[in-house]
């Protein structure tokens, strides 16, 4: 049986539905990341798990015990749930020392003094902040504060750890470091954990499984590999960084093989057996559309287009290529650039090698970028 289980969870704020029927099982010792854009309900879901919010409908079970079920009036308040939460703003109590912050929960639980000391020391030591134990939280740097917040959440050995975008207030370098701390901490403690973030890379690095959320629903639940390589819909593909999402339809070529053709007929790509002939969209990562002069085998197809812009990024060059009226994001590997002796000029015709077996087929549906102007325009 799953350690944490949500069944049909719905949550309304003043008549606005924020969570719309969430079903999720988290196994013992697993770390599930809730990933999604702001406003998708991921933080609300986390708060429902912690008991800081009451759900409107459905059921939340932790360790086989129902903690929130409106239909029976069951609700266990946050202070009785035995969870640990790491807040985005750290939420360290400024009038207490690091040690008092970390031992607060244990004191409230009337843990014997010696045991408190042992558990607190262990938590602080495992995060390398034992030597700052007697300082006030306000005297520490951001990264140290975040580690104290981690120690505080873990010290009471909760059944469930919840992380609310804990890295979003740190700079890029510290973020990597604390991310590793969290990963180590989780692996060592084996505590079931739910982690909220909007950062795809952070989610991939930490998660056993990722739940991609949008508009109060889980769009896809799967391992990082699954979510990254096999998005189930256009939203997930877009959110997981598929730069090229094309709309069109599947037709047959002269030999009767399935071919995907874009709406304008600019692009024709033969499909392998994985893709259902009813799909109205395909998605490709720029990394699988290479500017290349190599000969191709059966696993790839060559498209020809003209260069719109080149952006040199070190490991590779990002090239925007117009194939007919469709603009594709492509990459030029470094060895190709060296072989050519430089970047292609604007307007120059290049060959694109598209890896067929990396193409993802999707149901046709509106993209977030088509309703929200905040995204980069993608080729459709």
């Amino acid at each position, binding site marked *: 049986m799953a350690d944490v289980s949500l069944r049909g969870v719905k949550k309304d704020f003043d008549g606005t539905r924020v969570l719309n029927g969430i079903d999720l099982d988290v196994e013992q010792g697993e770390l599930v990341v809730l990933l999604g854009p702001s406003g998708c309900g991921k933080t609300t879901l986390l708060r429902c798990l912690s008991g800081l919010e009451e759900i409107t409908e459905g059921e939340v079970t932790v360790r086989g015990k129902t903690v929130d079920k409106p239909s029976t009036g069951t609700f266990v308040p946050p202070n009785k749930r035995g969870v640990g939460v790491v807040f985005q703003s*750290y*939420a360290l109590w400024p009038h207490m020392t690091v040690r008092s912050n970390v031992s607060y929960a244990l004191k409230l639980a009337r843990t014997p003094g010696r045991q408190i000391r042992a558990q607190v020391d262990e938590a602080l030591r495992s995060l390398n902040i034992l030597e700052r134990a007697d300082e006030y939280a306000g005297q520490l740097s951001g990264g140290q504060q975040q580690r104290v917040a981690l120690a505080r959440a873990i010290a009471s050995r909760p059944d469930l750890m919840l992380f609310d975008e804990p890295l979003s207030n740190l700079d890029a370098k510290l973020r990597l470091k604390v991310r590793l701390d969290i990963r180590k901490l989780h692996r060592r403690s084996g505590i079931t954990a739910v982690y909220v973030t909007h950062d795809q890379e952070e989610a991939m690095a930490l998660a056993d499984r990722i739940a991609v959320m949008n508009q109060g629903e889980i769009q896809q639940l799967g391992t990082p590999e699954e979510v990254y390589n096999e998005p189930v819909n256009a939203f997930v593909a877009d959110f997981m960084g598929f730069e090229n999402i094309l709309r069109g339809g599947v037709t047959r070529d002269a030999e009767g093989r399935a071919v995907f053709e874009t709406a304008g007929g600019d692009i024709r790509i033969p499909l392998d057996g994985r893709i259902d002939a009813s799909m109205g969209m395909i998605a490709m990562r720029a990394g699988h559309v290479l500017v290349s002069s190599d000969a191709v085998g059966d696993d790839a197809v060559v498209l020809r287009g003209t260069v719109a812009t080149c952006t040199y990024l070190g490991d590779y060059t990002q090239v925007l290529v117009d194939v007919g009226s469709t603009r594709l994001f492509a990459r030029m590997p470094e060895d190709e650039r060296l072989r050519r002796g430089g970047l292609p000029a604007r307007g120059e015709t290049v060959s694109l090698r598209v890896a067929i077996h990396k193409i993802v087929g999707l149901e046709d549906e509106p993209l977030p970028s088509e309703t929200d102007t905040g995204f980069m325009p993608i080729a459709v």
Partner: protein
Amino acid sequence: MTDAPASAVMKRWFRNRTAVLIVLAIALFLFVYPVVMLIVGAFRNADPTLPAEWGFQGFAEVYSTPQTYITFANSAILAVASTVLGVLFALYMAFLSARTTTPLRKLITPAMIVVLALPPTFFAISWGMLGNERVGTINSLLGMILGTDVSVMNTNSWFGIIFVTALHMAAVSYLLLIGPFTALDRSLEEAAQIAGAGGIRAFFSIDLPVLAPTILGVTILAFVKGLETFDVPIILGTPAGIRVVATEIFGQIQDNIPPNYGAASALSTSLLVLVIVLVFLQWRALGKRQFVTVTGKSFRQDRWDLGIGKYIGTVVIVAYIVAAVVLPGGQLLYGALQPYFGAKFGNFTFAHLEEALTAPSLVDAIVLTISLAAVCGVLAASFSAVAGYLISRTRSRTTRLIELSMWLPWAVPGVVLSLAFAWAFLAVPGLRSLYGTPWILLLALTVSAIPIAMRPVQGAVVQLSTELEDAARTNGASRFRMFFGIVLRIIAPSFLASWLVSAILVSGNLSVPTLLSGLGNKTVPMLVYQLYSDGKVTESAALLLVHMAATFVVLGLLVLLYRLAVAALGRRGRARARLMDDGGAPLAPLAAPVAPQSHAADEELVGEPR
């Protein structure tokens, strides 16, 4: 650079510092010089116009009289009692308002703002009439009901002074507390709940300790205000023979012929030293504001349902509004319509109101007071804007000096400021002729308003991104033009708030004009006090009523004109609204002195990594 001629170097030095030097000169003259003269005066044995010998005569005289110790003790009693009552009540109200579902909680903040905007003289006079031992309205009403003469209440007493002072103190403290109470990072409390603490426990073990520095700062501030208080004790305490330090200083000059300047100055200096020490302590407490953490992410604020307790809260809120607004307001109106104080019910006359609206001496006083209020407000807000800007943009010893000197009036009680200005102007032959004219009133009242005027304006300037200014400069605006064209325009709403608050406080100020107005230019609060103490109680009520109504109308009209002018600037108005969202900030009144920025800037804010 070394071979540049000396004159060029000097020119350069002055070009960058002209503004700072001018502001510094004004600040030293207005804020520091009078206090220095007051202290000098305490060590002279004659009045400021006469040649005198130096000595400790004033102090010797004051400290050899037992009355002095009694007045200090009285001040201490009043300060402690009104602080304890006022701050505790303010905490309770702030809690109800910010954190509970108590019905009518939304009335608390408006009521407190109203109480703060009304002059203390109003509360003192109204409660003096309500609670008069023999003919007070409350006693008379009870007498009518019971059919016999009763005296359940006497506000010309310790009870009255403390009660009325605490009513006002509660409003001041509440408005200082409500911001931090509301802004408190709720995730601190949530973290405590997660750790296993219930709601009440989280409130007492997390919220209150986190707010402790703010509460301590507000308490010290209230205590200082209690020590300085003048209006209430002079009106309610004088009939009862209760004298506090501020009224004693006034009495040394008013009741003695010739006035005893030496004793008054010695008392003032003692009070000043005491208050400066306390204000310094308050700076230390409020300066370390790192406890109040505000984060970007605010989740839903769940309010507590206190059960039966919330109805108790409602009763308390209503009781406060009745005691602080309804009863005194009704009494003032009723008093203004009575032919004489203590007249039978049903006896009404418009004679006193008519007199207040027509008698030249009274009309002149109203016009003078409101003009002073409007002009002092402009001066205080403008000076605060310029000085606040210079302070926030150039950090040097000079600007630090300006900042410190601007806070000095905060520590100077009104009567003491009055005496200090008297010394400062009487002692210098040229300035002497200004004594007794409206001009000296204008300067002294402006000075008294500066610490309050500074708060909104300085806050706005600090928030203003320097990039906006840099953009103006690189687009070709001169410094001068940049300040008036960009900075002043953007901070306009705060400037208005600053002006309004100063004007309201000036118009009700009784203590500053006491020793400065001449016979022909008494301000309304002074006349009201004089009429009241001469027994012309209903006349004073009528005058105060007319004055308050006139102030309300005139200031309201000026605000409206200003709004129209801003609206006429159309696009700019909208652009500003987008740039700065400080609509909630105006009327953040009677601000506590925030410690000079450098204090605060040294502290790292918890949970504020941006």
